[in-house]
């Protein structure tokens, strides 16, 4: 369960906010800072810098969590990912792009969560072919709540098909096809070889095609969607 928000007078929140904005360079908003400047600001403990980074990456982290662990646990995983990010940033050396590093922590948080919950493996192997029943169940419950039409139907069915993939397949296909990462980045995130990332992706797609076919989704629907 996600940690509750702090009280209005939580120590460290209001105390920090009291000097909010004092250290922001004149004429520069947090949104305008590039990643390197934002990292430097966070290392200096500039007020508001963490929140700026959060807003920059919140959709990526939450989206990844949502698609790996499902809606029931996504907020908790995203929270854990951001805590890991903020705790790890002072030691971040910039060996990888910030986004890659953030993806890695988010994926690790999600996979750790799944491991804790279901004893799943970090990287799916061929033998890991069982879909995630728990995630599937929560996703299944979602679209039926209200009628959706057209593109929304297709997206929902595609999302549902993704959920039916084994965790490792789902992770690599989300990173590559949904998030648009390169295999080199994925290999760095998953700490595997580039070739492994590619072969996992191709197998994942083959499996996804089978799932979509079983759901009656046509190529024309996808092309027109």
């Amino acid at each position, binding site marked *: 369960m996600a940690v509750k928000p*702090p009280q209005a*007078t939580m*120590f460290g929140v209001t105390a920090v906010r009291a000097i909010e904005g004092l250290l922001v360079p004149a004429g520069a908003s947090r949104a305008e800072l590039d990643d390197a400047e934002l990292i430097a600001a966070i290392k200096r403990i500039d007020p508001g810098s963490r929140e700026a980074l959060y807003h920059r990456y919140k959709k*990526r982290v*939450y989206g990844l969590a949502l698609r790996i662990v499902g809606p029931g646990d996504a907020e908790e995983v995203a929270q854990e990912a951001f805590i890991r990010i903020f705790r790890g940033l002072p030691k971040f050396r910039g060996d990888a792009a910030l986004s890659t590093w953030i993806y890695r922590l988010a994926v690790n948080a999600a996979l750790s969560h799944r491991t804790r919950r279901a004893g799943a493996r970090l990287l799916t192997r061929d033998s890991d072919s069982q879909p995630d029943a728990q995630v599937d169940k929560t996703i299944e419950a979602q679209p039926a709540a209200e009628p959706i039409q057209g593109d929304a139907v297709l997206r929902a069915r*595609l999302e549902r098909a993704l959920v039916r993939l084994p965790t490792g397949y789902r992770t690599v296909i989300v990173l590559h*096809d949904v998030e648009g990462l390169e295999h080199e980045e994925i290999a760095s995130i998953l700490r595997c070889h580039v070739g492994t990332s590619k072969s996992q992706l191709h197998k994942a797609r083959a499996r996804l095609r089978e799932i979509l076919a079983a759901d009656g989704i*046509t190529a024309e629907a996808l092309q027109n*969607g």
Partner: protein
Amino acid sequence: MAIGSSTTCGQSPETLSAFVDGDLSPSQAQTVRAHAAACPQCTISIAELTAMVTAARGLERPEPPPSLWPAVEGAMARHERPWWLSLRLFGSGALAGAVAVSVVALGLASWRTHRATAPLVAPVAQVTVVASADPLLNEAEAEFASAAAAYERSIEKLRALLAREEPRWSPAERARCTERLAQLDDAIATSRQLAHRSPGDTVGNEQLFAAYQQKIAFLAEAVHRGGTFGEGDPPR
């Protein structure tokens, strides 16, 4: 035609996927192209894969719930809370005061052993001289003073934080806080007198440090909880 329909030509789906991504070598890609030109099933499969990847790329990144950032911020604030806010009233942790008391107790034991073996020619005068000259006792007294100073600094920081929070409180809450702080200050003053009544008084210093801890615990709670201090744990 439904996606995923199997092909009978023997072309592997993984190869077609790699082809779609441009991951094949030029010669391999040319082979697939040549094969697909003569194989309607593979032509369709390539179109399906392309459509599937395009559809996946079109999936939106969902907006997280608004409660996520406050939860992250709150968790970080709790994680980074200074150590002195973790002190428990009369706790049994590695408190500076407890350490100091232990050090002084050891110092006193050593000093008493030393005194017991020393000649007792002029007892009253000797106690005064030995107490001020014994390096172990002096060191222990310095530990007491250092621990007390650390407590005072912690209290000072918390008072500064409290001063920022108090304006948000109601007059009644401020009055209650002032009253409680006065009681705690009285307890500290009394304990300090006890601690200083004789050199190396471990019992008196224990009481003094307990009073400091009590004040720190109160201030931490007041800073943390605001004007609702002392009203039980916040709902979780």
